[in-house]
């Protein structure tokens, strides 16, 4: 009889995690030396990474291809504005707002998770549009004009910038670490079983609805948090921007280019997207059209993204979520 055991994490992955921790500490200390511009740009990068990681969780691990995550990006910002209006200080309001958005996602999940793939994609988008329309009715938002988080002006610009930067860094860290823990735990194994074969997963007693619901809510809270942080750095809230479908398009682009359903893919994708934006962003519409074409090319010819390129060269996926089984010494694998 063959005995199998789960292999320990490969050495390269341990190095990678160590490196990531070092980078994290370095980023935390960076504002001591970096200029305001760099701090602002990095804040944006962190927000992009959060979006990518959350969308990957949703689409890559739960198979929920949403084109409506902007609903939660916008709701996170809107909840923050409402909470600040109600007298809460702006920074706690970011997190309170995200938690409230999670509640909205819980309610929506009963409805949207019963849909088929294609329906889900567009219905979530319609829901985002409907929420945007409702939010525009709020007199505080003043329709399409939008409003500003004037409460943030109570802080000195440097303090505000630094706080948003550190909060974004911390949130990003928590999301990456949390996703890692989540996917290595029960939900991770269940979601991978569902992804491989939904029917088989259900037949061994996995509640596919429950797993999807949890991931949906987590991803929604994540997007809301990132959305609120974005609002805290941008200050103005316009329904058309906050609930714009471009958020979902960006998320999709980053995850697709990096590698859907891999742990490290969305982070790579976000870095690449950020770099493209920095280099070609001045070209405006042509740049965005180019992004669309890159997305088509990746979808058709490199559907596994940059990580896929790495895998094609015969290398192991870095930080893979798949548990590897090893054989006891002296045993040979069966062909």
């Amino acid at each position, binding site marked *: 009889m063959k005995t199998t055991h789960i292999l320990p994490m490969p050495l390269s992955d341990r190095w990678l995690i160590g490196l990531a921790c070092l980078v994290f500490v370095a980023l935390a200390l960076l504002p001591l030396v970096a200029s305001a511009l760099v701090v602002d740009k990095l804040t944006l990068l962190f927000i992009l990474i959060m979006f990518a990681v959350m969308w990957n969780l949703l*689409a890559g691990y739960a198979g929920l*291809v949403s*084109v409506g995550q902007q609903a939660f990006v916008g709701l996170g910002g809107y909840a923050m504005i409402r909470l600040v209006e109600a007298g809460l200080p702006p920074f706690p309001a970011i997190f309170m707002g995200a938690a409230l958005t999670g509640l909205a996602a819980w309610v929506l999940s009963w*409805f949207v998770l*019963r*849909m088929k*793939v*294609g*329906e889900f*994609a*567009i*219905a979530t*988008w*319609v*829901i985002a*549009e*409907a929420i945007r*329309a*409702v939010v*525009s*009715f709020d007199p505080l938002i003043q*329709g399409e004009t939008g409003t500003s988080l004037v409460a943030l002006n109570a802080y000195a610009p440097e303090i505000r910038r630094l706080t948003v930067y550190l909060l974004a860094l911390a949130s990003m860290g928590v999301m990456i670490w949390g996703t890692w823990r989540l996917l290595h735990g029960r939900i991770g194994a269940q979601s991978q079983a569902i992804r491989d074969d939904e029917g088989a997963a259900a037949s061994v007693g996995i509640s596919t609805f429950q797993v999807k619901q949890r991931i949906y809510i987590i991803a929604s809270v994540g997007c809301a948090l990132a959305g609120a942080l974005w609002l805290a750095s941008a200050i103005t809230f316009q329904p058309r921007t906050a609930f714009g*479908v471009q958020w979902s*398009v960006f998320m*999709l*682009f980053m995850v*697709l280019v990096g590698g*859907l359903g891999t742990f490290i893919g969305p982070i790579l994708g976000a870095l690449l997207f950020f770099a493209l934006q920095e280099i070609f962003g001045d070209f*405006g*519409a*042509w*740049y*965005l*059209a*180019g*992004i*669309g*074409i*890159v*997305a*088509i090319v*990746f*979808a*058709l010819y490199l*559907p596994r993204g940059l990580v896929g390129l790495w895998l094609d060269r015969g290398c192991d996926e870095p930080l893979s979520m798949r548990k590897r089984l090893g054989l006891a010494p002296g045993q040979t694998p069966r062909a």
Partner: protein
Amino acid sequence: MLESLIQGILLGGYYAVLAAGLSLMFGVVRFINLAHGDMAVLGAMGALWLVQTMGFGVPAAIALTLPAMAALGWLMQRLIFERALAGGFLIPILTTIGLAAALQNGMFAVFGSDTKSLGAHIGALSWSSWQLPGNIFIGKLPVYMFVTAIVVLGVLHLLLTRTPFGRAVRATSTDAEAAALCGVDARRVHRWAAAIAVALAGLAGIFLALRAQVTPFSGPMMLIFAFEAVVIGGIGSLRGTLIGGIALGVAQTFGGMISPQFSILAGHCLFLGVLAFRLMRVAANDRGGWRSAIVAVFLHRDRLRRKA
């Protein structure tokens, strides 16, 4: 009130044409084209370019645009969608979102962001109307568009039910393998279906340009309206699509009576309501129909909980 109802119904013709292409792609090719609305805008922009830059008349521009759109649809199916379809359920969604972004921003870069309309090129037609008894005014243009929509959908219906091509289309969409055994080349059918779908999108875009304005970023909203009409009417039947389009048009005009912003929201609400009703009906059927489902939920709740 009655005037709004008539306006809503007439608007529904436009939505039905817009939705028919999406429905055809979804029903036959099993493909949700998230760039459908942007294709419609492309058709409108093409016609506008022919009229405003090349100096064609509006009818000539329409006559040139529609075949060009059909050819574009055929090519897209051949070059992009076929490959995307082979990649599973995710890739088509990703591909067409990329295509949508490329089309929107490409058109923005080429044509600029100003709103454009064909209304200025059709003279009195854009504002003249008939007066019905009861002091009801009905625009001539909406009526002509509605009639065109009915004719187009009728011809499409005949094409699908009465011709060898239509039989091949329906056979492929029910069982592609069995259709292949009957000598039907699914890829060929899909290419022609895509050609028709994109031509329909182009026609809808021209309708929009005739009755209102288009911008390079009108596409996503058009896609949403098309999808709403398809879902409200039920996927896979042209009559359903027409009913769905009319229901959406009526909901929007009635919503617009309350406030202009409410118009689109009313359409969203109708769509979400219909979708919720369908999902509940499916859930109810799983529990043996409405009656037993309600009984189960209200009378035996504790038993259900124990089971869970």
